[in-house]
């Protein structure tokens, strides 16, 4: 009998041990080095190296987006042990590319269009070899003890425009109006140019509260500087009038910046251009900019139905110069809830 009781008590003791062992499994899973799957970042830029002649080309803030990607193993399956790859793309380069796409079927009027891209290349072919995004990989799957993840180098983003051909746009007369709208407009050619964005020493803040929603890094951003070449085109009204006959690339400015980025999923732009109709929501009734647009919470009284998508812990300012919702302070500002 005693043996049986002892045996049962031992069993209970074993169960107790399991309970104690279970209590040690107290830690939540470590976050992964990642960046948000949606939305944008605003990046406050501090120039650190400005080549001569590029002083007027310095940017104070830009908008980028980042996306993370799984890495496949040799058999084509997702390798969950590998840190994510990350792509960073500037809004400007994306817009430039969309602009080039628009030149592929440039409307010259009269149901006709031409491809203005020099050589008749397609925009899609331009980014087959030169990608619009800088591409790197986190060095580790999980953040370090400072809740930081690192991407030391990236393959730079490149957009090489082959240049644009000149075109003439024809506007036909509208017989229903008295005016004679028939006209031909000259669209000047544009030189070949290159945009290039290379990020390095990128550091993401990654914790459960801040899952990759701030980062800092060095950006070497190369952008073309164009100058309009004109020739006299006097008219009866304006004898001194000129017309642009070519958009000349005079130089490319490769300016080095330190960027401090904050995730702004829904709203990065806090500008309030003059509304075109009376139905405009209250926040847009005055021309200029409005800090309310950078708020983390929705403000229904202002007609703002969803927040800007910026972590509410972060100090954000609607920057009067760039009219972007920028982080108001250095990297990790407001990250008090680690």
């Amino acid at each position, binding site marked *: *009998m005693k043996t*049986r*009781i002892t045996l*049962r*008590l031992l*069993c*209970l003791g074993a*169960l*107790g041990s399991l*309970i104690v062992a*279970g*209590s040690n*499994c*107290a*830690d*939540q*899973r470590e976050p992964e080095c990642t960046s*948000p*799957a949606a*939305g944008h970042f605003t990046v406050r830029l501090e120039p650190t190296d400005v080549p001569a002649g590029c002083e007027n080309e310095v940017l104070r803030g830009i*908008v*980028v*987006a*980042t*996306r993370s*990607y*799984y890495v*496949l193993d040799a058999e*084509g399956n*997702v390798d*969950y042990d590998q840190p994510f790859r990350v*792509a960073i*793309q500037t*809004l400007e380069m*994306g*817009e430039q*590319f*969309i602009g080039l796409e628009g030149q592929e079927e440039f409307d010259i009027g009269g149901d006709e269009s031409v491809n203005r891209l020099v050589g008749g290349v397609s925009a899609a072919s331009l980014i087959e070899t030169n*990608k*619009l*995004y800088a591409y790197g990989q986190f060095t580790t799957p999980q953040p370090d003890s400072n809740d930081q993840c690192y991407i030391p180098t990236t393959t730079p983003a490149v957009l090489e425009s082959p240049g644009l051909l000149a075109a003439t746009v024809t506007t036909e007369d509208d017989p229903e109006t008295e005016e004679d709208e028939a006209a031909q407009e000259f669209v000047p050619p544009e030189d070949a140019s290159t945009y290039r964005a290379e990020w390095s020493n990128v550091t993401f803040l990654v914790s*459960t*509260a801040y*899952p990759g*929603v701030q980062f800092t890094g060095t950006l070497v951003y190369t952008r073309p500087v164009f100058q309009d070449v004109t020739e006299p085109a006097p008219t009866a009204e304006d004898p001194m009038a000129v017309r642009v006959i070519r958009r000349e690339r005079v130089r490319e400015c490769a300016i080095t910046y330190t960027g401090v980025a904050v*995730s702004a999923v829904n709203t990065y732009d806090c500008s309030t251009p003059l509304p075109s109709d009376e*139905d*405009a*929501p209250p926040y847009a009734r005055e021309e200029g900019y409005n800090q309310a647009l950078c708020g*983390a919470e*929705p403000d*229904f*009284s202002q*007609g703002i*139905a*969803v*927040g800007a*998508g910026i972590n*509410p812990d972060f100090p954000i300012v609607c920057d009067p110069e760039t009219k972007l919702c920028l982080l108001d302070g250095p990297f990790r500002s407001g990250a008090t*809830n680690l």
Partner: protein
Amino acid sequence: MNVEQRRRVLWRVPWLAALVTGAPTVALSLLSTTPAWAQTIGVATLSGKVVDTQSKAPIADAVVTVTSPALQGEQTVVTDGSGFYRIPNLPPGDYTLRVEADRYRVYARGGIALRANVTVRLDVEVLPETLTAEEVTVVGRPPTVDVGSTSSGLNMNSDFIERLPLAPPGGKGGLTRSFEQLAEAVPTGRSDAYGASLAGTTSPENAYIVDGLSVSDPGVGLVGTPVSLEFIKEVNVVTGGYLPEYGRTQGGVLDVVTKSGSNEFHGSIWGNWTPGQANPKRIVSQDTITTQRKLLSTQDIGFSLGGPLIKDKLWFFVGGQAASAYYQAERELNAFLTNPDGTQTLDAEGLAVSAPISGSKRQFRAKSTQYQLFGKLDFRVDQNNTVSFSVKSVLGQTGGNGYFALDPQSGLIEANQTFNVTGRPLTLSSRKPSQVYDFVLKWSNSSMNKRLLFDTTLGYHTESTTGSGGLAADGSEIGTSEGISGQPLVQYRRSNPSRRSIAEFETIPGTNPETGIGPCTPDIATNANGQPLVTRCPIATYNTNGPGGLQKSISQRIQLREVVTFLFEGLGHHVVKVGGEVEYSAVDNTSAFSGGFNIRESGGGGAWESNRGYFVHTGPDQLVLYPKLNYKVNQWAVGGFAQDSWSIMDRVTLNAGIRYDTQTLYGSQGDVALSLPNQISPRLGLIWDPTQSGRAKIYANYALYYQSIPLRLAYRSGSGEPGVFYRLPKAACPDPNASDFRECNLDPNNVGRSPLNTPDDPNIKYTILGFGRTFVDKDLKPGSSTEISGGGEYEVIPQGRVGATYLRRQTNNVIEDMSRDEAATYFIGNPGQGIAKDFPKAERVYDAGIFTFTKAFADDWLAQVSYTLAYLRGNWEGFFRSQTLQLDPGINSDFDLSSLVVNRKGPLAGDTRHEIKVFGSKDWVLSQGLRLTTGASYRTRSGGPTNYLGSHPVYGGGEVFILPRGEGERLPWVHNFDVHMALGVYRSRTQSIALTADFFNLFNFQATTNRSQIYTTADVNPIQGSAANNPYLPGREKKEIDPARVTTPDGSTFEAGQRNPNFGNATGFQDPLTVRVGIRTTF
């Protein structure tokens, strides 16, 4: 007054007994201060003190024996030095007690009713042999007040279950008459969309225990083993104040004890048939397609047999039941009427008028079958050791072969609250096979004269289910290219500039084949711009091709529980209990979209879009399509408890205990998905019997309950659900009536720029909708609730007691997923705390005053009457959302975005303030051997709250509370009057044949049970601030929002015409009059 009558009085007023001295009687008193927590779950305990009737001195070494038809053999103990005896682990039933002591007369009495999880104290005074006494028959019955426990709820044994109209054929569990249906009889209990809601909580939060094994579905927490009432001996529904041995739930506990064999062979054969129901009230809807649901029939047949294999040693019980149910879904098309000028005909309220299209009715059927097998062996090794082993199996099949499925989780056709045949039947139907097996091994051991007890339970539960999605109805395998599993769901849903007509998809009766003109043809086809004026048969959506989301799950649970009970004396009697349990459960879940992804028409009709499909991003514009996601997740839950039930001076009982639990969920990659450690639950209860005779109690209780999280969270948030949005050109696929979209060019690599793409997105073709796993707040606290309760009970007639209870249960911490940046990143945390401190605190508060009268079955009648006044409010309903039926425990959408939480606080869906339940039964002996049993119930409850809901710009339809929760008009009172009758011919007490009839909703009340709460399908803002002050149109009989108060996210004016024409219309009614007849023979 003769002696007999006087003794009856003595029984009813026991303290008078003390005044009656000199009477040569066997006096028996039943004291109340009974140590609780002395029993294993599902069994009862009998305890008491044996004293000399003259000297009142305790008698040591008296032999106390109990026997019962419910007990295999007999149980014997010996009183200790203080005359105290205690017989634990007694199956519920009627018992006879016998006390033998040297130099004392033998004492025996019967009629001791023991219910599961109840401790009854029976003190005995025995006569010395030297005394001369007349023969005495003790009349009356022992008190039924459970003076050792503070728990509230209802204990239902076969007397109750067999005599009342319970478990109606319709709804969840109705197919097999599952035990969870009994919750409707319990004060504070009601049926919710997925089962039994108790004390304001939701059904997946409950603990479902059958023979000591947790049988909840490891995936979502619903009942996994819907055991038929035919195999159940007793159901104890505990709604509050429960013991530390119950854990991992902040809902209620449904504790089921199954039947066992005895020393006599007994069996039963039964059959039940529901030949349909009265015509249900038609749902008024401003839709072209309407579908009316009606129960056609249910039937079940079964048997049970129990008896000895070796008398007094080994017993068996086996049973089986086959059941099936048929529903009809009658679909009809309606055409909107137009005026001679081609404009829409409107009624007085400005709503479009429609008329049924003659000959358009089509009948569809839903079918469900289920087979249950049950077997149990009980082995009495010796006086101190018993072993039992039971096996349960539930095999179900529903849908397929031309039938729609009755969703096992919700009991609804295709899991849809407002099921409507809005497309090809094969697309809308599913096949849902299910298999459940339970194995339970129990060993009870006692020693030291039953002062030291060991109880070990080892159980295994496994189930194969298909979730709400189900499998393809044509039998094709999930995640393959076979049959319709290989075809994408195609959804036509053009809304701009006009909706599509049903005539584009189906031949409309009455249409001239040559001219094509029919009931859906507009009277004036186009305006000057060539656009159609009025679509006479518009449809919101039309679904064709594959069925879309599919799911298959195999779950299992292994559970080991060990409890040691030790009795000792020290300033009273102590019953100390220490227990531990370990549970491992795992879910192997496969999810897929037929054809790999869903395809839907864009709102403007000019393109195809896909937003459902498991696409893994491996680089910008690089996708890998997973035809199915197979995740294997698991969890460990370990816990233990210690408790002492201290009976102080036989007057007051103090129950003090503590429970410790920890739960860790692991994701598919093997790492921790969620860790919920250090769940320390103190419980404290105090009970005082002012009568000191077991006829009354006054008690108060404090408890902290922790809630376990089912594994669905681990395979959704903890493993990741990759997804993208992309758009295909319309030319990629033909327009309506394409029978097989696999012929289309749906290669996701051939798509153009995603319309959701922004220029800075490195992905041009696709927009990421889901990526990676959800982070978890490091300071996450497990979900918990605090409960305080208090009240009293008093026995007013033999076996009949009145009670009053106050119960308050309030959530402390709630687990939900949230996004602090409007849907870019999500994490799991506690709303209002930790890193989610800027979210409103999630809360649910339940206050209830419960007044009851309970009369156990005796003298041929029983009664159970209750009135509950309850308030349930907060901003968190529980483990599912009643508005959308979203069942994602811990990751529902309530707190996902800060823009979603506005106006969410208020009366919750279960806030039915007044509830009256009256159950009564009476047996009538018509003649020798002929007995009529009549039972009836009247249940009535006030209507629940409704809401004004709109569409959210990110989360879509029904996610914006335009006005604070509960501001809508309350639903009306719902009355139910049910009757049960059984006419039985008895050859002996155990041999009979009986005809039964149940009438559910006898008066065919058809009250509205749900209304459309979608005020508009347009994106709108919640009304806040001063605009929320009386935001209604003046002069209306019913409250109606002033459209001028509604604003939209894009600043555009909200037009009155954007109000949902069906808003406020009934979407559900009470089940109509339903009759079930049956026959049963027992032997």
